[in-house]
């Protein structure tokens, strides 16, 4: 099993590597080379920071085209984490309108200004669907660690599971070989390790 973490210069890579090592994955690479990404069994798209900045970096490295080829044409399994998940949508309104990778029919918007403090930071519960591959052998409301100011919304069937913080938003989705989680499984103890293991084993 080889896992490639897509390197575009943003995100806490160290924690993802540690979690994968804990799960017994020996071949982990951090790369933006098409050849190495192409050889990997699974891809992880990480990310912390601004959507616009991330897309600029991704385009500068030609990763938008590489990922489109690998994920859409070659159907390679990919998991987007936090900003990585948001980048898979059509667009975001962060720092002005920015187009995303357009893997799924969804959009990124800012949390509404209400009495809930933004960013949404901490452990919160996701209502999981045990029939999904991501949540195999998991059920009910499961705690995961979130830290974000923008959220993903969609009217399309994406096998989404929701979390509530002032209002409902998409905490995860999975469509065939493409999965995304708004939370950080690598920072969510056994709950997150179980989810990462499900991605590795079932996609």
């Amino acid at each position, binding site marked *: 099993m080889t896992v490639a973490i897509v390197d575009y210069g943003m995100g*806490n890579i*160290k*924690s993802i590597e*540690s*979690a994968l*090592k*804990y799960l017994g994955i020996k071949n982990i690479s951090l790369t933006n080379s098409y050849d190495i990404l192409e050889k990997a069994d699974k891809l992880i798209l990480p990310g912390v*920071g601004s959507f616009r900045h991330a897309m600029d970096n991704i385009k500068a490295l030609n990763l938008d085209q590489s990922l489109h080829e690998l994920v859409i044409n070659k159907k390679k399994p990919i998991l987007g984490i936090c900003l990585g998940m948001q980048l898979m949508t059509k667009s975001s309104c962060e720092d002005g309108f920015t187009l995303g990778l357009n893997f799924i029919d969804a959009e990124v918007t800012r949390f509404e200004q209400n009495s809930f*403090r933004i*960013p*949404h*930071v*901490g*452990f*919160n*519960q996701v209502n999981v669907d045990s029939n999904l591959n991501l949540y195999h*052998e*998991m059920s009910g409301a*499961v*705690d995961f*660690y979130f*830290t974000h100011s923008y959220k993903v919304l969609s009217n399309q069937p994406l096998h989404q599971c929701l979390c509530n*913080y002032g209002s409902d938003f998409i905490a995860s989705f999975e469509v065939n070989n493409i999965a995304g989680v708004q939370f*950080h499984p*690598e*920072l*969510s*103890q*056994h*709950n*997150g*390790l*179980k989810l990462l293991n499900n991605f590795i084993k079932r996609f």
Partner: protein
Amino acid sequence: MLRKRIIFTLIYSNGNFMQSRNFRLQKVGDINWLEKNYKFQKIAFSLDELIVLNASRDEKSTLEFAKIINRLADDVFIPIAAGGGIRSIEDAELLFKNGADKIILNSPLIDDKDLVKKLVQKYGSQSIVASVDYRRTGEQHEVYIHDGATKLDLSLQKYISYLEQLHIGEIYLNSIDQDGTGFGYDISTIEEVAKFVTVPLIIAGGAGNELHLMEGLNTDHVSAVATANLFNFIGDGLPKAREKVILNGLNIAKWLY
């Protein structure tokens, strides 16, 4: 519902982890010792967050400290906040690269406001924790920086409001008087601060058993309870404390798998 948190604070100084009492440090052991005797990875599974403070009193080497963070980050799958001795963007970057998810600032909050602003801009408010050390003198509070060595000429309320204007993400409120005593948190001060603080409040100083943790978690506007008490909580102390906190129905995350 957003959960409250139980945090363990590891105090590091020149190669060793320390037990602190009223800010006087006593050596406990190095990282190998921590892993071997305290099976730290196992203990970390009963935490929601780990804080690691570099309390070296002479020249604080961020390079050495970052290596410790890197090693701890191999073992824990929760957010790590690290700080003590951050004096530049490069220091912060080094800690983030080695696995820190947040950084903790104390002295630069007064000594280098520009650095604080730059760090907030670069990493976002949610990544910046302001550590506030204080002592009680009767009804008043004295705020300290420089590892408790320099007293500020500001009330606790004015200081916290100043920090909020700098857009720091959280306050780590630590009572020097209660620190390491195991006598419980300074709840009356915490209740007072809870009335005016607008960012998440982490309380520290004094927790000696799970009842103290619960008392803290039950206080309005407290987002997290921290303890640095290696002697009282390490071993099976933390797993048992977490179990009791959950049995008592408090709002903390459950690790099911």
